């Protein structure tokens, strides 16, 4: 559910509570509830408006080049991620036109991993996708330059120059790339894919360029995925990274990934 949908839901709830309070004999608790909701609405509205404005500012005009002033990234709070929940994976599949099948030849741009620490027995669930490295091995190894990193840190595959050699699949330390093994039908217009080419998480670049969030971040019912500009010290993701302990998968490789995790 999007932030806007959540806001609309809260407003509807507040109205219902206010109507309940108008009825003769309505309880004091209902009145208090409506008052609190109204107050919350007054307090939250400017913030929501600010988010909308920020989103509009992040939207890139057609033809406007991408700059390195922004570095898109995500912070995944694994303490809020349930092993039973697969919403981010479903949203990714729907947004990008993936089949959702999980056979060895099927594409999986994002997957849930279940982690068990050998020493403590602690278990953690977390989504893993392309980590959008600042120094991506897939870009280094690609013979034709089809694997590339945008100035804003998003790592992509140019479907027109990918020859399907799969060296990037071999080189990625995160198993974040898939190879399209069979002909595709019913593709999404925003997300062109192709048999014989390599593909992976695009951080929903088509949505990001429109000022929206990646589908996985938007779909998370627990709000465990924070998307934003890591270069902006005032962004929600930067503030959160400053406030809580975060780590990156295979930090030892020093690839400076754009995806960070809390609770690993």
């Amino acid at each position: 559910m999007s932030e806007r949908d959540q806001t609309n839901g809260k407003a509807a709830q507040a109205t219902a509570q206010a109507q309940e309070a108008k009825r003769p004999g309505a309880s004091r608790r209902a009145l208090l509830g409506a008052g609190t909701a109204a107050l919350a609405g007054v307090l939250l509205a400017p913030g929501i408006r600010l988010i909308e404005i920020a989103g509009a500012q992040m939207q890139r005009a057609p033809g406007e080049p991408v700059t390195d002033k922004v570095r898109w990234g995500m912070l995944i709070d694994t303490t809020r991620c349930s092993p039973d929940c697969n919403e981010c994976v479903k949203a990714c599949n729907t947004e990008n036109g993936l089949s959702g099948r999980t056979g060895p030849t099927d594409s999986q741009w994002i997957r849930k991993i279940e982690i068990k620490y050998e020493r403590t027995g602690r278990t953690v669930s977390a989504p893993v996708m392309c980590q959008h490295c600042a120094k991506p091995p897939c870009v280094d190894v690609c013979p034709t330059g089809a694997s590339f990193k945008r100035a804003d840190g998003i790592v992509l595959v140019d479907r027109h120059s990918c020859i399907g050699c799969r060296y990037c699949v071999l080189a990625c330390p995160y198993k974040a790339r898939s190879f399209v093994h069979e002909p595709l039908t019913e593709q999404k217009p925003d997300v062109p894919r192709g048999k014989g080419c390599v593909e992976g998480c695009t951080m929903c670049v088509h949505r990001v360029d429109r000022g929206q969030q990646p589908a996985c971040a938007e779909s998370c019912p627990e709000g465990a995925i924070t998307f934003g500009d890591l270069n902006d010290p005032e962004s929600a993701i930067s503030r959160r990274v400053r406030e809580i302990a975060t780590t990156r998968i295979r930090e030892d490789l020093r690839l400076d990934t754009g995806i960070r995790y809390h609770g690993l």
Partner: protein
Amino acid sequence: MHASQLTTPPSERRFWLMVALGGLLVLLALGAAHYMETSGHIVTGMNNHVVWGLPHVFAIFLVVAASGVLNVASIGSVFGKADYKARAPLSGLLCVAMLAGGLTVLSLDLGRPERVIIAATTYNFTSVFAWNMFMYSGMFAIVALYLWTLMDRRMNPLSKKVGLVAFVWRLVLTTCTGSIFAFLVAREGYGSALLAPMFIVMSFAWGLAVFHLVQSVIFAWNGLPLPDHVHRRMSRLLGVFVAAVLYLVAMHHLTNLYFARNVDFERFILLDGGVYPTLFWAGFVVAGSVIPLLLIYARGFGRQRDTLLASALVVAGAFCALYVLIVGGQAWPLNLLPGASVHSTFYDGQIAPYAPSLPELLLGLGGIAVAFLITTIGIQVFDFLPRDVSRPASAEGQAR
């Protein structure tokens, strides 16, 4: 016209038979490649976890052996050994033929083989793969020039210099081929600088083994005896190379075993990984290295047919070694979080499945068929037959 004039001579009949056989295999490979291209790689055994399979085993064998087979020419031209110099043209021809075979397989296995022109014209110079494309095309040009200097009397004076360039070029080429795996940072089976020199020494052994096989067949079919001193020299050199490969492979595994983080991978590849330890120990170590060494050096062996068998076993062992390295290295899961076990729907924490398919096998065999066809036609059309100068008895003694 007289009836006897209509009869095709036996050697010519054999030539056309070989061309037909090679052609048939190439056609089957093209059919397999077309099937893979139209249906997608779903019809192969490869998947998102083992992305390089049997075609790559064939292709890398051919490319590595192509570089190594030129060793024969280098020993002749660069180091001035007359016995090897007589074999330099055949060595050059085999190099070009195997390189062409290997590249055919690599190109036809691409997800988008029609875009191979992009690979040939657009280079990302941080990519080891792109270095290889550059090195392969350069190798064709240099070896073609080298063959010209060897076969045209007017160009003979340049043969040593061009031979030296070819010698250096192929060392760099095989370094690059080894580096395809050596530069993979996250895979426990790869990521070692030792792979580059290991590939060079492997190329020496595998190339010389192929040369032995081809040379024996050519001499036998032409009814020529291979001089004993030549055979002895070349077979002992093969023994040295096979032992050196064994040493470097042992060092590679010992290095991995010394690093605690790689011990589980080594256990998988050497002990409990099913087909991989079997291929490693029975295929590469015993059949592909120890038995050939015995056939070359043990008392009572060392005859020409022993060397022939040893060479065939070295080639078979090479396929086993490459299968273990390429497929086994990918089958072992990536370690996302050291100290934790990880499971997912994407085979995290699991041994990746792989079973080679018929189209892959046909494509790989097609690469060998391309090399076979080029060699057969080259030998028939040009004069590539090694001509040994008969040696005085004293020189025979020195060769021993």
